[in-house]
C-alpha cells in the first residue's frame, strides 16, 4: 500500500448556533492515496461538505474542530490558519458547489483564474497569463477564450473554468463538492470524463462529494457513505454495491433508480436524526430494517469487515451463524 497523501483522523466539528450546539461531524476518519478518486456520499445534512471545508480550513468562525487532518503526514489543522494556509490551493484545492455560478460577471475569465496564482505568488504577469492558457486547454477550453466574460460561456464551460481555477496553483488533492449536480446529464458526462482524465494525467487525488450514488459508482474506486455526521461504511464502490455491510448503504442503493434496473425502488422511511441533540445508539437505528437488541443503546464501532472495507453496524459483530450466513446484510 502506498503512503496516504491525506489522512483524516477522528474529525469532529461543532457549530455554535443561537439555538445551541450542532455536532455536524462526529468522528470521521479516512485516507486518500495519491491519484486516488474517492467518493464522499450521503444525503443533505450528513456532514460531507463540512468535512471537506475543514480539510481546506475554511469553516466559518462559529465552528470548532477536533481531530487531525494530515497532508503528507503533517498535521495541517494543528495551529489553525497558520498551518493550513500554506497548503490551501497550493496542495489542496476545492471546487465549491455552484462554483460555475460564482464567477465575477464583470471580470474576464482568464483574469479570475490568474488571481489565485498572483495571490499565492506562484506566477505573475505574462507567466500567469501563459499558465491560464495552459489550464484552460487542460480542462478542454481553447486558451484563446481567456479574455471572454463568464456570460459568454455555457454552463459546462463555466464549470470547466471553475475546475481550472482550482488547479491554478498546482494542487495534489482536489476536493469537488457536487461538481455535476446542476448540470444536464450530457454535460455531467463530459465533466466526469474531465475529472477522471485529470486524476490520471496529473496524478491528482480527488475527493468527490455528492448525493448522487451512480455518479460515484462510475467514477470513484472507493467511497465513504456518510450518515448523521459519521461514516457508516467505507470501501471499494463495487463492494459497497455488491456486498454492503451497513443497512444504510444497501437501502440507499435500493432507493436509487437505475436506468436498466428492474427492481422496485423503495424509499427509506423516516428522516435523519437531529444533530443538535446527543444520539444514543446507532444513528440509523430508527430507520433501519435490520435493527436488533443493541442498536438503540449501544453505538456501533467502526470495524474492518474485509480488506479495506469498514462499516459501523452491530450486524457485523454478531457471529455469522446467528444471522443465517455471512453477508446477510448484503445488497442482494
Amino acid at each position, binding site marked *: 500500500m502506498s503512503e496516504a497523501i491525506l489522512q483524516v483522523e477522528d474529525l469532529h466539528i461543532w457549530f455554535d448556533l443561537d439555538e445551541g450546539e450542532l455536532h455536524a461531524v462526529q468522528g470521521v476518519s479516512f485516507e486518500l492515496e495519491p491519484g486516488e478518486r474517492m467518493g464522499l456520499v450521503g444525503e443533505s445534512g450528513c456532514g460531507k461538505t463540512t468535512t471537506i471545508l475543514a480539510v481546506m480550513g475554511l469553516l466559518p468562525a462559529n465552528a470548532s474542530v477536533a481531530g487531525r487532518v494530515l497532508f503528507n503526514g503533517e498535521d495541517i489543522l494543528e495551529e489553525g490558519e497558520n498551518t493550513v494556509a500554506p497548503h490551501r490551493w497550493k496542495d489542496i484545492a476545492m471546487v465549491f458547489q455552484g462554483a460555475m455560478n460564482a464567477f465575477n460577471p464583470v471580470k474576464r475569465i482568464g483574469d479570475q483564474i490568474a488571481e489565485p496564482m498572483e495571490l499565492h505568488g506562484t506566477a505573475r504577469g505574462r507567466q500567469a497569463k501563459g499558465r491560464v492558457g495552459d489550464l484552460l486547454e487542460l480542462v478542454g477550453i481553447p486558451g484563446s477564450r481567456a479574455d471572454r466574460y463568464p456570460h459568454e460561456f455555457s454552463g459546462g464551460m463555466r464549470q470547466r473554468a471553475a475546475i481550472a481555477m482550482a488547479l491554478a496553483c498546482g494542487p495534489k488533492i482536489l476536493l469537488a463538492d457536487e461538481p455535476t449536480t446542476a448540470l444536464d446529464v450530457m454535460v455531467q458526462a463530459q465533466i466526469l470524463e474531465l475529472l477522471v482524465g485529470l486524476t490520471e494525467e496529473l496524478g491528482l487525488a480527488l475527493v468527490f462529494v455528492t448525493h448522487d450514488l*451512480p455518479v460515484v459508482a462510475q467514477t470513484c474506486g472507493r467511497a465513504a457513505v456518510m450518515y448523521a455526521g459519521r461514516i457508516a461504511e467505507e470501501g471499494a464502490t463495487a463492494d459497497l454495491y455488491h456486498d454492503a455491510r451497513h443497512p444504510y448503504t444497501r437501502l440507499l442503493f435500493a432507493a436509487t433508480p437505475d436506468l436498466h434496473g428492474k427492481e422496485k425502488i423503495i424509499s427509506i422511511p423516516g428522516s435523519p436524526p437531529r444533530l443538535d441533540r446527543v444520539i444514543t445508539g446507532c444513528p440509523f437505528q430508527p430507520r433501519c430494517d435490520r435493527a436488533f437488541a443493541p442498536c438503540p443503546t449501544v453505538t456501533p464501532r467502526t470495524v474492518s469487515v474485509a480488506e479495506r472495507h469498514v462499516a459501523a453496524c452491530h450486524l457485523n459483530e454478531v457471529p455469522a451463524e446467528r444471522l443465517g450466513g455471512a453477508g446477510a446484510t448484503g445488497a442482494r
Partner: protein
Amino acid sequence: MSSGPPLLEVENLVTHYRLGRGFLGTITRKPESSVHALDGVSFTVHSGELLALVGESGCGKTTTAQTIVRMIEPNSGRILFKGKDITRLSAGEMRPLRREIQLVYQDPYESLDPRFRVRDTIEEPLAIHGVDVAGDGRQQILSALERAGLSPPELYIDRYPHELSGGQRQRVAIAASLVLNPALLVADEPVSMLDVSVRAGILDLLAGLRRSGLGILMITHDLSTAAHYADRIAVMYLGRIVELGPAVDVVRNPQHPYTRALISVVPSRDPLARARPQLLEGETPNPTDIPPGCRFAPRCPMVEERCKSIDPELRPVGEAHEAACILVGGSQRPIAERAPRTRRDETEKRGA
C-alpha cells in the same frame, strides 16, 4: 385504456418568447428575434396513464407544462382537454377547468407559504372554487391528505411547513392539488429537490394516483426515474419531441441518435456495469437560432448530408413507438449497424 378522446391532446404546439432588441436594436431596425421554446409539440395523455416528458434544460419541457395549464399563451397549435379545445378559452371560461387540471411544482420549500398551516394550504383551492370549507370541505381536506400519504391526516393538518420534512412538504403540495379531484396532474420535476431516500415515496404516490385513474404528465430530467415510473416517455430536444414510445422500448431500444446518446451517458448505480458513454460535443444550442433541417444534425454522430436540409417528423419505428429521424424507421438499415462516431473511439484511435 378507456375509449373515447384522450384526457389531454396537444397538437402542434408552438410557443415563442420574443426577445427585446434593446434601444440600439430598435433604432437600427435590427430584426426581432425570439426563443423558439416549443416548435411543434404533439402528444396525448390518457386517463390512468403517466407520461414522462424528458429532456435537458432548455428543451422546452417546462414551457410545455406551463402552456398546457395556460400560464403561457401558445403562438399556435391546440390543447384539447377531454376532447374540448381549451387553447383560446378566456380566464373565466378556464376557471371551472382549473379544478380538473392541477400543477405540482418542483420545490416544496418554495411552493408552500411558510405562514400557512397545512390546513390553510389545502383549504385555499377549495375556497377559490367556492366549496364550503366548514362542511363538505373538511372531509375533502382530510381525504386529500390521506390520498397524499399523510395519514392520519389529523397529525399533519395543523402543522406549519417548517415542521415537515421535504418529502412531507411535497405530499402537502400534492394534497393541495388533489383536493379538487382533478383528472390531470402536471408534475414539474416533483422529486428533484428531495433527498434520494424519500423520492421513491413521492413517485410511488404518483404511480398510485395514476392507477386510480388520474392522467399524469411528469416533467423530469432524470431518465432513470422516467424508466421506472412512466408508462410512456417523450424525449424532447430543442422544443420538439424527437422520440415517443412505451417507457421500456424507449430505454431498451432507443431509436433517435439523441435518445441513444442520452441513455448511454446515464450512470449506472452498479460500479461494475461498464458503459460506453457516447459523449456528444458541446451543449444544446441556443433555441434562438434553431439549425435548418434536423435540429440535432450539428451534434449528431450519424449525421448525413441530407439531414441538414430535411426537418424530420415523428414517424413509427415500432409498436406505438415513434422517432423523428430520417435515418430510422421505414426500410432503412437498422441503426445499430451504423457505427456511431464517438469521442472515445477517436481517442482510442489517437492513442493507438
